[in-house]
């Protein structure tokens, strides 16, 4: 059997190789009629996603990968107007870029809204003052991933397991405070949208209990490696994006949406206001939202996630649909909530609580 951890490395290396390949292709940009500069997350660096668009339109897509909205904002602040045509960003952070005056309006009739899962239209996030600035392109869940051969799957149906002692030392925590604090809020039977300063003391208490029961707090690759190698049996904050790409090699790994629900992550794509080639940029957005583009993005080499276009299913095979739990989405969408969208001050308090938790 293939070692899954090696598989994780291979995917990582593949993602790096993809970035390199795209960068190399950039050098031959002179051969293309047009160029598109895209500020993206690593799933968009997969040649399997980018190349069909390039070939179909005789263009070069130059991708720059970033992690974290803060890093994305700093890249924008250091760029000249027109440097970027397209940007991918956490759906809950679209307004941050819109408020900076950097996102351009997208005509409503240019988007396949009728084909998208209604819950993923997320107008409050992607629009402002009646204007559309971005569109949700991929989503998934921050929930509980686990090894079903080592834990009782019934235990995973209750979020309070994440701060109980039953699996002490066998739990990894995903290292991103926003969805994790959202999960704790759900575990306390409250809504992520209602999260406020008043909830923070109770959240901090549970965060500390969660840390005491855990073995590690880790990023995507480390989390996946820990779960795949048996270093831990549960990953809090995981989901299909951790286990789906391992489904062939590690069928013992599973994930669930507990009875209290889970946090839904979503990423959006938009055209920059000062794009030098807005028509091509819009065409790229439309390609990403097309059923073919969505299927390729959903199964990108960097990480998997659910497509927002319901017609993408026609381009996914059965194994891919099973790994993504394609048929369960209606129930999951009902039982999941978006990331909390904190004010800047609350955001700071949440980050401080997370830092305190890690240093305890």
């Amino acid at each position, binding site marked *: 059997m293939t070692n899954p*951890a090696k598989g994780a*490395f291979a995917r*990582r*290396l593949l993602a790096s190789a993809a970035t390199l390949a795209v960068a190399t292709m950039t050098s031959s940009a002179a051969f293309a009629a047009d160029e598109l500069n895209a500020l993206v997350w690593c799933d968009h660096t997969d040649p399997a996603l980018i190349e069909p668009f390039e070939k179909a339109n005789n263009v070069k897509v130059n991708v720059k990968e970033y*992690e*974290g*909205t*803060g*890093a994305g*904002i*700093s890249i924008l602040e250091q760029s000249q107007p027109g440097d970027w045509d397209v940007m991918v960003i956490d759906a809950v952070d679209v307004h*941050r870029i819109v*408020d900076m005056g950097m996102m351009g309006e997208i005509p409503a009739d240019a988007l396949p809204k009728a084909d998208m899962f209604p819950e993923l239209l997320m107008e409050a996030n992607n629009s402002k003052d009646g204007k559309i600035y971005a569109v949700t392109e991929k989503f998934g869940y921050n929930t509980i991933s686990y090894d079903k051969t080592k834990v009782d799957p019934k235990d995973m149906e209750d979020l309070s397991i994440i701060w109980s002692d039953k699996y002490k*030392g066998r739990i*990894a925590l995903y*290292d991103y405070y*926003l969805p994790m604090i959202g999960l704790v809020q759900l575990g306390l039977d409250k809504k992520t949208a209602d999260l406020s300063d008043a909830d923070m003391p109770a959240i901090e208490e549970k965060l500390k209990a969660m840390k005491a029961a855990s*073995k*590690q*707090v*880790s*990023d995507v*690759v*480390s989390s996946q*490696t*820990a779960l795949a*190698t*048996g*270093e831990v049996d549960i990953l809090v904050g995981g989901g299909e994006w951790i286990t789906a790409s391992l489904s062939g090699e590690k069928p013992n790994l599973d994930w669930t949406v507990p009875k209290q629900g889970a946090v839904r992550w979503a990423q959006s794509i938009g055209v920059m206001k000062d794009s030098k080639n807005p028509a091509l940029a819009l065409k790229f957005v439309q390609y990403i939202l097309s059923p073919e583009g969505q299927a390729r993005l959903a199964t990108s080499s960097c990480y998997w996630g659910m497509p927002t276009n319901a017609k993408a299913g026609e381009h996914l095979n059965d194994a891919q649909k099973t790994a993504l739990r394609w048929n369960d989405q209606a129930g999951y969408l009902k039982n999941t909530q978006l990331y909390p969208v904190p*004010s*800047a*001050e609350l*955001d*700071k308090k949440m*980050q*401080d609580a*997370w*830092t*305190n938790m*890690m*240093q305890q």
Partner: protein
Amino acid sequence: MTTATLEQTERRKAWGFVAPALAWTVLFFVVPFIFMTAMSLWSRQGREIVRVWNLDNYVRFFSESALLKGLTNSLEITLMVTVLSVLLAYPLAWIIAERVPKKWQRMALILAILPFWTSYVVRSYSWLLVLSKGGVINNALMGIGLISEPLEIASNRIATVIGFVHFFVMLLTLTIYSNLIQLSPNYRRAAADLGANAFQTFWHVVLPLTLPGIMTGAFLTFVLCIGDYITPQILGGNNELVLPQIIMLQIGRRADFPMAAALSIILMLAVTLAYIACARWLKIERA
């Protein structure tokens, strides 16, 4: 040409040689440093960076135990790594310089620096596989019946230190080796003639003469180790944050560059103090 004119010409020549390096340093170190210092005195309020000078970021650092602990964790791990690396690298360098035949020394050095050829990130993840519960070490120990339960050697400080030491032993080996091979054998012969045994020769002659190499390598180790966040992130399991990780946290989502700048200045101060200690007590500048 008068002596004064000659001196002026020489001085101009000297400046001509120094100028490019000076310009480089000013452009890529002094200017960014000044900017970073200024930024560390600003503050992030809400979504805005307020450009009013104050010491809020530094006050926050010294008043929040989680942030202060980042510095103490960094210093503890760095010192541990530096000492262990020196203790391991010295015998290795000595074996290569003294015991390996001349014609094989180059090959030995290539083998020593082989780990540098792989990506830092890949190397850290490889260590994770070696140290994890189902990793090479635990499997081997359980296979031969030495242990019945896997040892907890991943996702903690031990793992971080192992990862770092593996990397820096090679670096130190190179600096110490270069010192050892420059050491004239006459010193040891003279010590032996004066009645010193092997240990006394090493302790009173060889070690002091190779201290510059040790300190250069140790300082490099200190600088690289205290500024790294990847190894603690991957191997330490984020169970204790080091200062560079806290800096990354400030930038990652909130783009709190003033706080990140203040923490970076504190990190630089720690490195500067380490340099002063090296230069003052071990006279590294005269090496």
